[in-house]
């Protein structure tokens, strides 16, 4: 292999990522009203949580923090996870409806690489939304935070593998059963209830609390609250980070294997473009 070919092979994933990010950015920008609608949605949701926490009063301090920041981080992280999976699912659904999925599967890019690169784009968009959400919560609604930057970044990075697995699982369900939206809605409701988004999981009956402890999102939300609201150090966060890493190591290969299997079966059955 000569050096030009080698350089070209090394540049190839970056080049593809650039192409995917550019496609998604141009599409988002050209949906003129999309950004404004998102912003209005963010402020409406935050206002609702702000007044809910005021109505409940300052006496309620879940895990020792004020209720509004508790809600801000819980709903922000939950929305980041579920919307990332939703973005993934929508991309697959849209590709099935327009016929681009079949064509994408005939390009030189292996399906798994394509999915991972697409997910980076989906996460980048939702990460911007999460940052806007948290920033608005702090700047406009005066949520008090004591952030440890490195711990926040570490929680985010370890959570990404889990969010990626969730997104790939949603895409797999869409390819396999063409009913990914319904299943994601069901899964999203379960996660919302069990992951401590709105209230501490210790409030749940014991069996449900144990179930909540088996949900990876619980640790992502709890970790982000401790990093962002309590400023806990990396050392103090180590057990939570280890659990997040463990979930990622197990779930991501499983999700990729499931996707690979469902794509192969769709190619065998001729159902790639069914929706």
């Amino acid at each position: 292999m000569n050096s030009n070919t080698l350089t070209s092979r090394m540049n190839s994933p970056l080049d593809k990522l650039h192409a995917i990010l550019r496609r998604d950015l141009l599409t988002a920008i050209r949906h003129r009203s999309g950004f404004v609608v998102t912003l209005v949605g963010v402020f409406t949701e935050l206002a609702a949580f702000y007044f809910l926490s005021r109505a409940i009063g300052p006496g309620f301090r879940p895990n020792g923090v004020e209720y509004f920041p508790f809600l801000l981080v819980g709903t922000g992280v939950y929305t980041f996870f579920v919307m990332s999976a939703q973005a993934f699912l929508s991309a697959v659904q849209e590709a099935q409806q327009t016929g681009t999925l079949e064509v994408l599967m005939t390009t030189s890019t292996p399906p798994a690489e394509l999915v991972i690169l697409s997910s980076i784009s989906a996460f980048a968009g939702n990460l911007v939304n999460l940052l806007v959400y948290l920033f608005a919560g702090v700047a406009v609604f005066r949520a008090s935070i004591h952030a440890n930057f490195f711990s926040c970044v570490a929680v985010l990075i370890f959570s990404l593998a889990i969010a990626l697995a969730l997104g790939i699982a949603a895409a797999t369900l869409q390819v396999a059963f063409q009913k990914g939206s319904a299943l994601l809605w069901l899964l999203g409701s379960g996660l919302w209830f069990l992951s401590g988004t709105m209230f501490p999981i210790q409030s749940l009956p014991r069996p449900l609390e144990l179930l909540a402890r088996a949900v990876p999102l619980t640790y992502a939300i709890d970790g982000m609250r401790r990093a962002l609201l309590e400023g806990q150090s990396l050392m103090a966060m180590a057990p939570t980070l280890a659990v997040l890493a463990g979930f990622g190591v197990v779930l991501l290969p499983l999700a990729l294997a499931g996707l690979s299997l469902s794509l192969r079966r769709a190619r065998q059955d001729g159902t790639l473009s069914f929706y």
Partner: protein
Amino acid sequence: MDQVVFESVRKIFRHRPALFNWLGRERGGETIALKDVSFSAGRAEVLVLVGPNGSGKTTALKLISTMLLPDAGSVRVGGFDARRDAGRVRRQVGIAVAAERSFFPRLSASENLDFFAALDEVPRNERARRIKEVLRDTGLEEQADTLVMKFSSGMYQRLGIARALVKRPSVLLLDEPTRSLDAATTAHFWATIRRLAQQQTTVLLATHNFAEAAVVADRLLLLHRGELLADRAVGNGESADALRAFYFRMTGEIDEAMGTIYRAGTAP
């Protein structure tokens, strides 16, 4: 060496009714799309696939592109098996599908081509030149910066051909490529096909247009109900009428067609 080899290929589509389909009439079953079909295509050869709707033409093209996997037999492209070496096969194959809207609607024609070219690993420093070239070949130069959501059916179809060409495949698969094209674009496209064959590209083209077959084909494959009825050379200067007569003779469809015409009272 043959560029494309189909060896006893069988493809069956199994229909699974929906899980909770108590009210509907949908039942399970299967359709045999291809029954033990074998053929090969050499380098620089143009093979035209003809046959009635549902005869298996598109299925054959999709199997070569790796969009579908065979149930039995093997499909090889450039010596690589489409099942085991799908990645290597994809690097060699470009396909223009019949679905017109398989593009990102809020990207322009050149942005769409740039996206697919990147996924096909066309080097970045060559991409702009190649995109310009294929847009010129398909008559879309003036629409390069138009969002494809504003395209007509014919323009979508031309863009589909441009997408298949931009990676410079050694095997080009075209599914009814001139269905929505105007006469001038069609003539230009046929010239492009012959030029590509001269440049050593193998072309497999599915069509219902016998004039197209007469102009571009080196060989004609006739599929009927999933079976290969004929695999024959197309003579230099052989007319569209001669090919159409061959098609009707082989499929027996002429009797059915004439019956319909007589019943409608429009026979000459």
